[in-house]
């Protein structure tokens, strides 16, 4: 038995292909990318060593500041709203609609499987002002107010992006959190109700603490995804107006592939990786503290 389940050659055969692809196409590139951040240039022109110049350049780059602020703002706003909205929906499914929730659950879930690019283009046309007046602006006109150029200012473009992402993902987070809520034992709820707990107290003291693990997973999953946002913003605003809605990912993409500056692009990618790690650790630690307090 030991001999068969511990067969080294078999481990190699079964694990080998995945390991080989993973090592060659992910691990080594990550290390090489780290190395790139110490160089200037690209694959075609060749590289020259510049040491920590790229990193000091990151520090003083206005565009990096803007993208960093945008990325963090976007991640915080979207993570909070989509998990909160998803949680609200999950509560609605479990405690109000109960069995009748299956249809609306399915319906609200499906936007997450739709291609981001298609959804983004749809929202772009939905909020368009010219040459074709989209439904939103038609409605503003009908209500007697001026049509609005939603993509003309960074602020309104930001909120259209958030709205689109909520449209896409709220139902997904609802299902995710729903699976955590239905696992709460019925008798725990029942006894709390018998003790005379109000709905608010139930939520505060029973439901939230008991669904903490799945809430935590959602937060980590969400923050990781939102910090790496690329597809939806590229297709919706392409970072515009100007670069006001350009996240770090887009700035990295442009620096690398439009300007051919691999070294600096790799430095921005590194910044992004560190950011993701920091946020994940932060969410993890603060949630841990919460659990021990409760």
């Amino acid at each position: 038995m030991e001999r068969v389940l511990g067969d080294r050659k078999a481990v190699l055969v079964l694990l080998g292909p995945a390991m080989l692809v993973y090592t060659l196409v992910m691990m080594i590139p990550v290390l090489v990318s780290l190395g790139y951040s110490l160089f200037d240039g690209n694959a075609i022109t060749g590289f020259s060593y510049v040491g920590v110049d790229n990193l000091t350049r990151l520090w003083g780059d206005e565009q990096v500041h803007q993208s960093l602020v945008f990325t963090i703002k976007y991640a915080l706003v979207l993570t909070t709203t989509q998990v909160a909205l998803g949680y609200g929906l999950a509560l609605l499914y479990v405690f109000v609609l109960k069995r009748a929730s299956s249809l609306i659950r399915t319906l609200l879930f499906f936007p997450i499987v739709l291609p981001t690019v298609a959804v983004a283009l749809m929202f772009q046309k939905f909020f368009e002002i010219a040459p074709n007046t989209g439904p939103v602006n038609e409605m503003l006109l009908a209500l007697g107010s001026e049509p609005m150029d939603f993509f003309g200012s960074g602020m309104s473009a930001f909120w259209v992006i958030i709205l689109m992402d909520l449209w896409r993902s709220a139902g997904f987070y609802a299902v995710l959190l729903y699976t955590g809520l239905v696992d709460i034992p019925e008798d725990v709820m029942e006894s709390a109700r018998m003790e005379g707990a109000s709905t608010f107290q139930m939520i505060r003291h029973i439901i939230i603490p008991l669904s903490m693990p799945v809430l935590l997973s959602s937060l980590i999953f969400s923050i990781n995804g939102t910090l790496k946002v690329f597809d939806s913003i590229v297709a919706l605003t392409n970072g515009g107006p100007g670069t006001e809605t350009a996240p770090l990912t887009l700035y990295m993409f442009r620096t690398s592939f439009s300007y051919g500056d691999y070294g600096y692009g790799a430095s921005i990618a590194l910044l992004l990786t560190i950011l993701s790690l920091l946020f994940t650790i932060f969410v993890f630690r603060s949630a841990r503290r919460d659990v021990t307090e409760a």
Partner: protein
Amino acid sequence: MRSFVTQLPARLLVAIMFVAVVYPLVWMFFGSLKTQEEFLNNSAWSLPQEWVWSNYASAWTDGNLATYVRNSVITVFPALAVIVLAGTAAGFALEVMVWKGRNTVLLMFLLGIMVPAQMILLPLFTAYFEIGITGTLWPLFITYCAIGLPLTVFMMATYFRAVPREIFEAAVLDGASIYKAFFLVGFPMVRNAVVTVALVQFFFIWNDLLIALTFTSSDDLRTIQAGLLNFTGEFGQTQYGPLFAAICINVFGTLALYLFLNQKVMKGMAGGAVKG
């Protein structure tokens, strides 16, 4: 009666959500049947005057959508096969088999879930350029395989953990080789999980834009998402009808697949998120 009244706010809320999800899609579908003049002159709320199905034909051929779909199909499905087969085998080797260092290897795959794709794009671009495969679909295929592996390995390992070890031990005692234990016992036992994981990965890869934009230089190589993004440019001025038709093909194609597989997709994607 009383229950109807207390349920009223909830029902209203559900109705609003229903409209919020469905209306944009209906609007887009009607848009795909309008002429350019209708877009520019009529209200966005109006129905199409005549149903211009030719928008679909022009999106498919003039808009090159046929090429984009073909490119997507011939990169995504082979990549999916590799991801699922290699990922399941790796999950089996990491969870069922006993050897030193397997936890370290599992942790390494776990790290891969966290690392943003941006960290690997530049070295890969250089490597593909040096091997001389930049003008083909190979870079896309190779990158998709790698990107999908960490989550798949991790999820499959978790599923194998739920299978009682005695089953494999019994198989081995009965004289099965390790490969038989994997292909004839292990793989069938996690068959449902394999389908789930394949679905999650399919939606990730099929909807990808970042990798598709990075590694496709010419129009002939574009995947459906990259092609759709550049769709406006094809005609100079935005041709609304064909553009909407192209979006519709993309959206309703995915929707049909989703409806077909709905329960599995929901479980799989939610499960994948918790485990990831």
